């Protein structure tokens, strides 16, 4: 973002960077920065809070009055919320299926309602929603020690498939909790700590690492700080 600010200013446009990583913005040094200590992924701070978003924008646009490059901090910090969101999960239906497969099948109605309501979905980078249970079945087998070269993953690209599984769960979960909007890391905490799908992905990733699969193949399946 800070790089683009330099590029755009070079062509005569005035720019303002809302920076979520103040250290990086300082290094790159674009002409106007409002550093905001908000949860990553939420550069305006608070979803659904128009008044707060306007406060951020007002301070950002005020930077245009300065006569020289300027770097300010937004005074309010928004902490990330890392408690798992409270979201019901479907009960076991098919005791013969791996838990994550059973769970994902049970979420399909909520997922479809979400897509119906929103009109768009982030699922589909590598697999379609209907393939989520099959992908989790492969991940379950990897987690149990199956060789990744022998048991094939629908969609092939592990990082893209894990994205699709996460997006499927996110869209279904937000549909199930309604107005109880989760905090910034509440979905991640719920997904990796509570759902069978999240736990299966973490276990599959550990297994791939142990099998000495290529680093980019397993590392980016989940956030880098997760083990």
């Amino acid at each position: 973002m800070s790089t683009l600010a330099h590029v755009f200013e070079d062509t005569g446009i005035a720019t303002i960077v809302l920076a979520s990583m103040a250290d990086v913005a300082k290094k790159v040094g674009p002409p106007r920065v409002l550093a905001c200590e908000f949860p990553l992924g939420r550069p305006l701070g608070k979803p659904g809070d128009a008044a707060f978003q306007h406060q951020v924008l007002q301070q950002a646009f005020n930077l245009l009055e300065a006569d020289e490059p300027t770097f300010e901090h937004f005074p309010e910090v928004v902490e990330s919320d890392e408690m798992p969101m409270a979201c019901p999960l479907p009960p076991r239906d098919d005791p013969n299926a791996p838990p994550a497969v059973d769970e994902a099948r049970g979420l399909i109605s909520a997922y479809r309602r979400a897509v119906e309501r929103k009109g768009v979905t982030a699922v589909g980078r590598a697999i379609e929603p209907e393939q989520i249970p099959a992908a989790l079945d492969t991940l379950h087998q990897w987690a149990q020690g199956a060789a990744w070269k022998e048991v094939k993953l629908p969609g092939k690209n592990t990082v893209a498939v894990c994205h699709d599984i996460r997006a499927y769960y996110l869209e279904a979960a937000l549909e199930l909790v309604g107005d109880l909007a989760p905090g910034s890391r509440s979905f991640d905490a719920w997904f990796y700590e509570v759902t069978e799908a999240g736990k299966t992905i973490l276990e599959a990733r550990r297994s791939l690492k142990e099998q000495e699969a290529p680093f980019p193949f397993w590392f980016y399946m989940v956030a880098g700080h997760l083990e």
Partner: protein
Amino acid sequence: MTQDRAATRGDDAMRALASTMDAPEFTSTSFNKLRKPLSECRVAIVTSASLHRPDQDRFAQGDAGFRAFNRDDRNLIMGHWSPNFDHSGFHLDLNVVYPIDRLEELAADGVIGEVAPRHFAFAGNQPDTVSEIRLDTGPQCAVQLNADAVDVVLLTPV
């Protein structure tokens, strides 16, 4: 809050990591003072959230290109490849990433002159030097912003 839960401290870890990474260096800083009041300026948003419309190509891994969308588009997908930040905020309210409704309100109130007809998205996860964006796709985007007579760009990171 215990520190040993798997999913904690993600933002801290990312900020710590980012501060150790190489960043592109600029020997000078261009700085354009507004030549007219903000209330007469046309404003565009450029985000690194990999936003795109469903009918546009998805961002590929390492995609240094950008997507343009119209002022009225709201059915946008966040196509970011990084699993290292929150995606739920965008699902709840796209303005927390792409404050287009807030810009419309500021234009209606006369704070800014006008909302630009088009807005742009890049992908935030890029190589440290971002040379392709700096030398190629960034300048291409600037050409389009200038074609739309944009005075001010608000950059929002993801």
